[in-house]
Structures are given as C-alpha cells and as structure tokens.
C-alpha cells in the first residue's frame, strides 16, 4: 500500500496552500490549547445532546460521535470541481431511477444488466410505471467522496435513500465558531448555516400540484430509538416543520393528514427518514408499526410527495455503483467529472477470478452492506478471515464487489500523541428541487481516529471534523 496523500503537508513536505494558515497557527499556539478545546467541545456536544445509538450494543444507548477540533480544508478550486461533479452525478442518478421505473431505455440498451435491477431486493415493483411529482426521486443525496492525491477525488458511494450526517456538518461548524474565533478570523470560510433553508426551499418546490402555494412539509422519523433521531429532531427544528411519527399521520380519501390539537391538518410533502420497507404496512412490511397505512395509495394518486422517493435504493446499491460512469454518459452524454473507484464486479467470471487471486490486496464489499459492515480489507485481514471471505465469494459472487485498497488522504487530527495524520472521507449533501440543484459548500468529513485505520464509520470508531471551503 502506498503512502497516503496528506492534505496539509502534500508530497514535498511543505504545507499546501489551503492549509497555510492552519499550519502556522498550529506552530504558534501553546501545546495544551488543543487538548483544552477538545474537552470543551465534548462538553458542549454532550450538553446539546448530539448523540447517536449503535445498533446491537445493549449498554451504549446514546454515545457521542468523537469530534476532532482541527478542520479539514478545501480550496475554492477543489470545491468547484467537486460541486460540478456532484451536480452531474445526482442529475444522472435521478434520470436513471426515472428510467428504471419507466421506459427502461438503459436496460434495453444493455448498459445495466436487467437482473441487477429486477432481482435486487431494493427494487420496488410498486413503483413501476408510477409518476412521482416533478420527476424527482433523490431530493437529498449524500455522495461519499475520497481523495487519493492532489488532483484525484473518487466517488466511493452514492447514498440515494435517506443519507444522514448533515446535523453534524451544521453543529460541528457552530461548535468550531464558538471554540476557535481566532482561527476563523484568519480565514474566509464559506458558511453552511443556510442548509436548512435550502432544504426547505427544495422540499417546498417539489410539493404535488394539488397543494396550495404554501405547502405543508413534515419530517417523518421512526422515533426516539432510531440511531439518527437527534438529527431528525434537529432538522425539523431548523426547518420549522413538524417532526412526525407514523402514528401522527393518517390517510383518508387518498389524502394524508396529521393529528393536531386543532384536528386533522393536510400534509403535502413528507421528508421521510424511514426506510421504504416501513413506510406503509399495507404496501410493504405488514408488521411495520412505524409507517402510515394507505400512504402509498396517496402517493400513487399524486397527492403527497415523498422525499426521497420510494425505490431509490436501486441507484445506490454497490453493484449498480460500478455502472455509474456509464449511467452518467448514457443520460447526459458527458464524461463523468468525478471518477469511480476502479471496481471488480464479482458477478463477472473474469473479474471474480482476478479478485480470488488478489484477495490479500483488495477491499471486498457486500453489495447490500452499509456502515462498514460486511466488508473485508485484504491487507488488514488474517488468513482465516480471508479464507472465510473466499468461501462466501465462491458461494454467491453476485453479492460482492472488490476494489483496490486505496490510501485515503489524511488530515492533521488531534489524537493522544498530539497532532497526527488520520484518514478522512467527505460526504457533501446534494439537494435537488424542481427549480435547481443546491449544494452547501462543504459536507461532513469523517475521520478514522485509529492510527492506520481506513474505516471512518461512526459505528466503528470514526469521528467527524468541520469541513471548510475557502474563498481562494
């Protein structure tokens, strides 16, 4: 594995331009400042109650995601490239989903294999031939980006269902502004605080045509026990919309209402943060107590907008991912601005043969896995784990893809020993409305706090950083 690209020091050891001030500042401050601020930050986070729960850990009901006080910094030029690439990618994703549930041109053209779509558990036959308001499917997209050198950004993963993490982007910035006013004063950092306004504008723009001029938007959460509940309540608050649970809504005559202290109130747009499976017990899982019976009938009647639409999983599956460059080209006739990580599809015999021969150096991922689960990092795995994965691969090659073990870029991070480089990724949030695409400059930078670790997921010891986009 090659040495990772460090975003502050670069390859020649001199600090790269966006990090000039930060690097100077680090040299000037007394050594205990960072430690002190770090403790202060933790106190603030705990006080505000920004916590998440980890599934499958009985004792840890609410934990803090570790926050690193050193910002990750991008130059204006780097951001411009990312923004253009993100817009392009999300446009293509929307067109692709519309096509898959509609004319199926891309399948007919043989660009994406049919079985990949139709045999995919996240494919929703209920959506076949259905129109969604304004043809928009992915209103909120979270695109995970990694970087391997000064020029190259890769898309690691598309999240087209209910991407989370944006509350951390916003809160991280607030905490940083409180803790490091002097560091901000030495930079010009693009604000992210308008994200909730942009989101609300996006959601209102996609209201069904029958809604009145000021549509009613709600945020649908599975409830307090969901790992992202904090984010749901945070966003509802910032948006100024009701945070509803399934039991707060009901459907009558194909219209959706919420139960209020003044009787039923019509709902036009549901920013739902619950999975397709749980949306409507009449259409999907009958045992779901989280959903709203009859919601899909209202949706199909065009009386309510669901954001994101139902069935978008068909675009963010890891097997579909490998076709994304072709998808961009097919719909937009352009070369993709953001590259994919080179990917072997184990469903194809020659790819599988290569993967089986090179397991020790590859990252193998389960097609439907997420959150860093169901994944094997070859160079970091012992013989037994590799042997186990080999068996799994042979048994069901379709369920896996493989990628080279990439050296994710590193950023200076506060750790026990002081300031040291740690691997990072970036999740910007892309909002697609009827009128236009909105992207707040920055996103959520996740950092693998363990030395050498490439896993940035919060459920596996990852932390977050504030992400700065400079104006030069």
């Amino acid at each position, binding site marked *: 594995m090659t040495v990772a690209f460090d975003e502050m020091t670069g390859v020649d050891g001199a600090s790269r331009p966006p990090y000039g001030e930060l690097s100077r500042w680090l040299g000037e401050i007394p050594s205990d400042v960072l430690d002190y601020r770090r403790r202060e930050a933790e106190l603030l986070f705990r006080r505000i*109650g920004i916590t998440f729960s980890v599934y499958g850990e009985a004792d840890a009901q609410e934990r803090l995601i570790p926050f690193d006080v050193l910002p990750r910094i991008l130059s204006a030029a780097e951001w411009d490239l990312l923004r253009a690439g993100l817009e392009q990618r999300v446009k293509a994703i929307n067109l692709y989903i519309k096509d898959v549930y509609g004319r199926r041109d891309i399948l007919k053209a043989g660009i994406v294999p049919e079985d990949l779509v139709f045999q995919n558990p996240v494919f929703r036959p209920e959506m076949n031939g259905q129109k969604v308001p304004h043809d928009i499917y992915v209103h909120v997209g979270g695109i995970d980006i990694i970087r391997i050198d000064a020029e190259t950004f890769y898309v690691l993963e598309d999240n087209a269902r209910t991407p989370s993490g944006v509350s951390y982007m916003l809160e991280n910035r607030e905490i940083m502004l409180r803790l490091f006013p002097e560091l901000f004063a030495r930079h010009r950092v693009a604000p992210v605080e308008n994200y909730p306004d942009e989101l609300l504008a996006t959601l209102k723009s996609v209201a069904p045509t029958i809604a009145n001029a000021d549509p009613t938007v709600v945020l649908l959460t599975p*409830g307090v026990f969901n790992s992202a509940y904090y984010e749901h309540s*945070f966003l*509802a608050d910032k948006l100024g919309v*009701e945070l*509803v649970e399934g*039991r707060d809504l009901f459907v009558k005559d194909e219209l959706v209402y919420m*139960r209020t*202290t003044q009787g039923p109130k019509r709902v036009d747009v549901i920013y739902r943060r619950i999975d397709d499976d749980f949306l409507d017990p009449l259409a999907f899982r009958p045992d779901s107590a989280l959903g709203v019976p009859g919601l899909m009938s209202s949706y199909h009647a065009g009386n309510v907008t669901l954001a994101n639409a139902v069935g978008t999983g068909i675009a963010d599956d890891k097997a579909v991912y490998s076709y994304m460059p072709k998808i961009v080209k097919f719909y937009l006739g352009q070369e993709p601005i953001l590259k994919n990580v080179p990917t072997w599809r184990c469903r194809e015999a020659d790819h599988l043969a290569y993967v089986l021969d090179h397991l020790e150096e590859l990252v193998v991922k389960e097609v439907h896995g997420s959150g860093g689960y169901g994944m094997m990092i070859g160079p970091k795995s012992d013989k037994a784990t590799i042997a186990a994965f080999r068996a799994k691969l042979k048994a069901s090659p379709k369920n896996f893809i493989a990628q080279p073990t990439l050296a994710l870029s590193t950023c200076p991070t506060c750790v026990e020993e002081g300031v040291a480089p740690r691997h990072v990724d970036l999740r910007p949030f892309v909002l697609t409305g009827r009128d236009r695409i909105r992207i707040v400059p920055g996103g959520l930078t996740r950092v693998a706090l363990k030395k050498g670790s490439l896993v940035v997921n919060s459920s596996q010891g990852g932390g977050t950083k504030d992400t700065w986009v400079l104006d030069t």
Partner: protein
Amino acid sequence: MLSRTADNLFWLARYVERAECLARILEVTQRVTTLPLAYVGSTNEWESAIETAGCAAAFADNYPEANEETVIDFLCFSSANPSSIRSCFEIARTNARAVRTALTVEMWDAINGTWLELKRFGNGPTSREEFMRFLRWVQENSLRFDGSAYRTMLRNDAYWFSRLGVYIERADNTARILDVKYHLLLPANERVGGPLDYFQWAAILRSVSALTAYHWVYRESVKPWLIADLLILKDEMPRSLSSCYSALVSNLDNIGRVYGRQGAAQRKARAIRARLENARMEEIFKEGLHEFIDGFINDNNELGAAISEQYLM
C-alpha cells in the same frame, strides 16, 4: 401543533413537577423523624410518606416494611416505581427528547442536564448529608426547568399545554398531602394544640413550601383550619387548589381563544374553579374534609382526562 407533541409537553411538565413534590415530601419526612418522639408521636412517618406519594400498593409489592432505607429507595431511585424521582426525570427526559423541536434550548438544557447529572447519585445516597443534597438538587432542577419554560417559551399553545401539566399535577399533589394528613386537621372545636400536632402541621406547610407564607397571610400560630383554608381556598398561595385552578382555567381559555373553540375541558375546569370559589371552610369541615378532597382528586383526574380527550389524542 401535533397532538403527540402537546401530550409530551403536558407529561414532561407533570413529571418534573411530580419529582419536585416527592423531594419536598421526603425532605419533610426526614426532618420530622429527627424530632424526639414526644414531639411527633410514634406514627411511622415513612409509611405516611408512601401514602402521600400515592403508591402504597406498589410499595407493598416490593418491600416488607416502610423504613428510611426502603422508602428512600422506592421514592427516589427505584426503577420498579414508575413515579420514583429517577423514573420521573428519565420519563421527562424521554418526553423532552421526543419533542425537542417544541422546547427552547434552555428547557432542553435544563432537563438533559438533570438527566446527565442524575447518574452522579448512583443507586442511592451514601449518607444523610448526601441525601439532603440530593433532595435540594431535585428541587433546584425543577425550579430551573420551570423557570426556563417560563422565561423562554413563546406564549402559544405549546406553553399552555405545558402549564396545564404543571397545574394538574400540582393540584393533585397538594390535595394528596392534605388528604393523608386530614386526620390532623380537625375542626376548631376539637381539642388541639400540643407539640405533637404543631410539628405535624408545620411539616404539612413545609412540604408545600408555605410555612412562611402562612405567617404572612394569617399572622397567627399554626391552626389546622387555617392551613386547610390556605391550601384549598387562598388564591394568593401558589400551591393552593384554588390558585392551581385559576391557572388551569386561564391556560385553557388561552387555548380555546386561539383555536376559536371551547370544549368539555374548559367547561369542566370552570365548574371546578367555581366550586372552589364558592366554598367556605366551615362547610367543608362540616361535610368532611376527606370527602371534599376525595371529590376534588376525582374532579382533577376527570379534567386531566377531558384535556387528553379534547387535545392530546
């Protein structure tokens, strides 16, 4: 607003109020048990605390006898008791979390801070000093929550529903304190006096934080019918039934006005308020204090149910 949100706000306020009330009862109990028996008689104050808290049956299921250790455990820390101080704060915080969007930052800070700090007290105090600190701490946190609600919430339905919770709970608590001690509040012509009664009465007043108020209002030594008068009929006494009902009527009126519609809850609250306004202490004693209070607790519960029916489901 969402019915569920209103319901959560209502119960959030109730549980915080309940925790404070329990702390007051226990503080007084602790105090009375330190007096020589000649002053307070040989009644089991710990048993009386359990009765005042209204959970005698649940207590009996869990412990063989009421003493300092078992009562403190059950009323403060037990998770088997859904109304222990710990359970109250935990439920309040769960409710708060579910309606964070309806709370101000200060309110969330207060209840979340309470919940975080609660862990500091572990499964019970290690000494009486620590226990007294705990009881102070409970009351201070309730004050902080109540104060932040009062000072930071918009005066809209969210605020009014949370106030309804406070006053329904407070009226219930005051009524129950009176009811448990009613055998002490005998009519004027009974032989009264003596140190025993005096300290018991003083304890009642202390438990509703009214000992000083009593002296200001009546400028007399502690007399049982005046205590009853203060806690039932005096509007200026913030924990009196009458004062709670003034507040309930006005908060319900605010909701009715903004929603443009009155209902069973408004009518019920006004009827109870009118009964309190028209009541005379002599008559209450003649008909029986216990019967009066019993009737009131019933009425109060019915109002709670009417509010819930009309707005919270």
